[in-house]
């Protein structure tokens, strides 16, 4: 255990009946980082988060929060607050009462509560909405009330369950920056669960990729992207061409943007000949699917930096070229 760890999970396991949700997870989350648990549905990321919050009791393993064993401690006695995916705002209370709920439970004096509620609402830019009911707010406003309610108690750790999933696309992107700004300003540790790899990549300082209750890889976004630990991670994060090596005992993960298209044979480290099967034009870039002579398909993406029609068309014979260090070797 390093001194910087605020959460240490050791050998954590949880099953529901015959289904294993989380299988022997060891994980350290560092103080002051924005950590993302990333994975598809049913991978165990939410169960892991709920075990840290105290809503699920692990079958095995230990949870240390700030050096203290919290394994059997009920949620109301943990120095942790959570923002729920549904926001879970109390519909019978106004915004100020929602945000002040946790402070009232701590028995703080009323003027202190009012001051801190006002402060928290200002932090999330909802200063003048204290008297509204949750039903009178927009989705984005509700999300910020939920955030203020979780932040107002100054927890050691803020857990966020799919914090942006309920927002529409434009608002989601703006809120990403907002959350990162808050996290840095307050110097808090955020642990976020998400199924959206773009969200995890753009926000997190480190992330864990989960599959079938296990952690496949932990690391900063660029490392997970450029040096995936397994074929699952390579395939889950972004797009990857996975080529067999050593007669099928290892693989090469090759990202589409690391491959270039040429009309004639290039003098790159590797060159392959093929024919364009399909082109997906995405505005800022185009994704080509190229059939090689041996029948396999490779995906190649090019940035559309010039406003001219694409240089290649479907059915064109092309050369693919990439550098010797463009790919990453996978052993599993």
């Amino acid at each position, binding site marked *: 255990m390093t001194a910087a760890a605020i959460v240490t999970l050791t050998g954590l396991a949880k099953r529901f009946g015959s289904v294993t949700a989380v299988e022997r997870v060891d994980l350290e989350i560092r103080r002051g980082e924005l950590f993302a648990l990333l994975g598809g549905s049913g991978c165990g990321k939410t169960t892991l988060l709920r075990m840290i*919050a*105290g*809503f699920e009791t692990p079958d095995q393993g230990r949870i240390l929060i700030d050096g203290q064993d919290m394994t059997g401690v*009920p*949620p*109301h006695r943990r120095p*942790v*607050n*959570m923002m*729920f*995916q*549904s926001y*879970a*705002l*109390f*519909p*019978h209370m106004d915004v100020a009462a929602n945000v002040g*709920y*946790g402070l009232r*439970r*701590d028995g703080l004096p009323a003027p202190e509560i009012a001051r801190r509620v006002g402060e928290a609402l200002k932090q999330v830019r909802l200063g003048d909405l204290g008297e509204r009911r949750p039903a009178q707010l927009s989705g984005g406003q509700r999300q910020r009330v939920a955030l203020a*309610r*979780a932040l107002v*108690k100054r927890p050691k750790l803020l857990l966020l369950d799919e914090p942006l999933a309920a927002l529409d696309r434009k608002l989601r992107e703006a809120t990403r920056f907002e959350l990162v700004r808050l996290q840095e300003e307050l110097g808090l540790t955020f642990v976020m669960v998400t199924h959206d790899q773009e969200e995890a990549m753009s926000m997190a300082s480190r992330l864990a990729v989960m599959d079938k209750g296990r952690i496949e890889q932990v690391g900063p976004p660029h490392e997970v992207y450029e040096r995936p630990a397994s074929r699952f991670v390579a395939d889950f994060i972004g797009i990857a061409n996975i080529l067999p090596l050593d007669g099928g005992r290892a693989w090469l993960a090759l990202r589409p943007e690391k491959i270039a298209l040429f009309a004639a044979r290039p003098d790159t480290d590797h060159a392959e000949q093929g024919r364009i099967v399909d082109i997906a034009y995405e505005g800022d870039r185009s994704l080509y699917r190229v059939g090689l002579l041996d029948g396999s398909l490779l995906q190649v993406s090019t940035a559309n930096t010039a406003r001219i029609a694409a240089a290649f068309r479907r059915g064109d014979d092309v050369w693919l070229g990439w550098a010797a260090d463009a790919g990453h070797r996978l052993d599993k």
Partner: protein
Amino acid sequence: MAARARFAFTVLAFGYAFLYLPIALVIVYSFNDSRLVTVWAGFSTKWWSALFANEAMLSAAWLSLRIAFVSATAAALIGLAAGYALARAPRFPGRTLFGSLVIAPMVMPEIVMGIAMLLLFVGSDSLLGGPQRGFLTIVIAHTTFAIAFVAVVVQARLADFDRSLEEAAMDLGATPWTAFLTVTLPMIAPAVASGWLLAFTLSLDDLVLTQFVAGAQSQTLPMQVYSSVRLGVDPQINALATLIVIVAVLALTTSGWLTRRRI
């Protein structure tokens, strides 16, 4: 289209007439001047005045209201606990059986309930020397079958209740009990109130079960009405019936309104 609509309205009118014509007649004839229930002899409120001067009837009504209030309150508390347990308790062995047992009194013949209650009170009387048959035993009997109605209403409300609300409360530092009092209870209060009104109405007009467990001294309103009808119907009864209809309709519409209202 028009013909079909006319047909539908006719059917509807017959249906409602079948249901409510007798009650309408009771109300109209409570203002009849004649002593004979079947002969209209002009408008009068004399039976209403007679009713409000009828000591026996008034004290029976007062007893019934007290019993209904106490038993509805007891049933609301116990039914709330049962409904909560049914909706929230994790799966435990015998849960289905427990669920069926809670709602069984809704479909159990009242005669059977009455006999069972009578045996219970006779037994406890000889073993423990009480309780005396009267107010308390009627309250206990009414509470027993009203619990089921409250439990069903509460359970239905909790079935579509977002559990993360309770989790959020606990996450913010509330003990499970505080979370229940500050979040769950205020939100399901309309359902509990609606169950209370249902229990109140059921208690107010119960005759069969009450006759088994009432002592000689305690005459509830339905018992009083029943015995006075056997001596010959008097339009006072029409006035009384009109009052009971008004109370029941008020209670049921309030109950329905509370159930539909969502905060």
